[in-house]
């Protein structure tokens, strides 16, 4: 129903149940410490989804949590890190070291171009980025999975530019069309239109490339508000399958103009992620034993939420203690 959000508005629990399955290829929105769809990541963990095939560019908190909770089997990625808090995501690093997940590396531009190709219905995109590097020469996935499921038949291929001389070589990157994209936005209108503020990263390309899209948002706003300036809108309702109202749904990552990242929580996470026993306790305490996001936010506590609340005029929490 493109003109009414009613049929799409649901809980995170229902959205994950309907659109994320064991083995799904999942695109993660956001970037390192910003606008990770954490409410959905936590729900996926609670629902014990397994063998997810994650596709992302530079990703941090929700990726690391999903890997740590054992939800991920396969990963196409450019970067796993959470800013200064974890220059390399800790559970990601451990899982790769232990051979628990299959990984294939691309660069940020390469992954973004792959999402863009998928979004535009193009079969591939050409770039000069990566020529003669191991990103081009070395495959991560085993030969026997090539061409099965959503694994591309080749990681990429190098060809000569047919419009130019012999020396002009380019890398061709296969399009991505994930099963589902998980996106956190600031606003969704009552008509289902999505408005994202601040940097959009590759979220819009991810959403447009996916078979299904779940959008969690800070606020549901009146149709009149969202239609008053169509220039500012990001996605039409007919590309969105589920809308979940999830205030602070990106916590502990930031949501521009609503709240900053939570340095205290990210430091806590960094410490627990380093040890299997502590990490397991963290999952129990912050995911499994909190039935939903309301309970999660109660646990974070009002005082902490007030600390990270953004000054809306500048988009972040000025003077926040970020050590």
């Amino acid at each position: 129903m493109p003109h009414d959000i009613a049929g799409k508005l649901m809980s995170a629990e229902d959205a994950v149940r309907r659109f994320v399955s064991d083995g799904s290829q999942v695109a993660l929105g956001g970037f390192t410490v910003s606008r990770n769809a954490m409410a959905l990541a936590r729900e996926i963990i609670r629902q014990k989804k397994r063998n997810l095939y994650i596709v992302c560019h530079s990703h941090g908190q929700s990726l690391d949590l999903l890997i740590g909770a054992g939800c991920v089997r396969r990963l196409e990625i450019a970067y796993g890190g959470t800013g200064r808090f974890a220059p390399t995501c800790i559970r990601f690093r451990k899982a790769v070291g232990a051979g628990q997940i299959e990984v294939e590396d691309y660069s940020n531009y390469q992954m973004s171009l792959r999402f863009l190709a998928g979004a535009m219905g193009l079969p591939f995109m050409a770039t000069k980025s990566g020529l003669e590097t191991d990103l081009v020469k070395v495959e991560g996935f085993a030969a026997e999975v090539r061409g099965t499921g959503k694994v591309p038949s080749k990681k990429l291929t190098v060809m000569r530019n047919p419009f130019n001389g012999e020396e002009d070589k380019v890398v061709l990157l296969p399009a991505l069309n994930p099963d589902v994209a998980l996106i956190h936005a600031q606003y969704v209108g009552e008509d289902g239109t999505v408005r994202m503020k601040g940097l959009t990263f590759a979220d819009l390309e991810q959403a447009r490339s996916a078979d299904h899209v779940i959008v969690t948002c800070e606020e549901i706003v009146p149709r009149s508000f969202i239609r008053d300036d169509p220039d500012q809108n990001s996605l039409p309702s007919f590309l969105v399958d589920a809308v979940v109202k999830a205030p602070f749904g990106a916590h502990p990552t930031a949501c521009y103009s609503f709240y900053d990242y939570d340095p205290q929580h990210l430091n806590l996470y960094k410490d627990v992620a380093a040890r299997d026993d502590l990490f397991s306790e963290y999952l129990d305490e912050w995911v499994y034993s909190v039935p939903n996001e309301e309970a999660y936010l109660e646990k974070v506590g009002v005082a902490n939420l007030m600390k990270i609340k953004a000054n809306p005029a500048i988009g972040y929490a000025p003077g926040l203690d970020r050590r």
Partner: protein
Amino acid sequence: MKAYSPREMMATSAGRMIGNGDVVFAGTGISMLAATVAKRIHAPDAVVFFETGGIDPSLEELPLAVADPRVMSGAAMNAGLIEAFSLLGHRRLHTIAFLGAAQIDRFGNLNSTVLGDYRNPRTRFPGSGGACDAASLAWGVIVFMQHDKRRFVEKLDYLTSPGWLSGDDSRRQAGFSRGGPIAVVTNLGIMRFDDTSRAMYLSEVYPGVEVQEVVVSTGFEMDVSRVREADPPTEEELRILREEVDPQRLILGPPA
């Protein structure tokens, strides 16, 4: 007692390499300090942008990640990755990219992916992010490294980001139309690349650093015949760094 720390020396050395009007692809570490010092002293028209899509933000507070909401405030534009990398490689723009890495070889190729075997790594790093893109597409690259033998290696465990590849004309032959590393700025000095062979050579050592210290910290043979002593940070540079750019020393770390 030194009057400045190695990080302060690195930031000011790199800052001097930024020209007025350059479009600087910055990370969140020393590169942002370098760019900010440059803008406030000799390159007021340089523009800083981030791979996340933030173009020329006001940077009232130092971001701790390229996706920090602090890169979205007061900017000329908030875009996304596609636009950012399009600018990075834009043939009209003199783009300078700052990169770090876990390993570097004599031709300035970088590894920020793994130590050991790719499929069975001893240590996994975050991966390319935008590093391979910057190294492929920018007009020029400046690399920050800690100078030690395990990082300056004969052969990379994984080539994430292309430098001068195997030297000489190999970068052009590979299909790149521009770019390549300009300098490597470490805690000991500044390395540059020979115009013909494209091999790394020692260009400057910091005051108080012995050439021999650089040699033993470098895992491959490096020409040191062209070395001179680097100019230390000026009072002005240090004041701006310490008082205006990073008063909380979030990136500068402990003082000298």
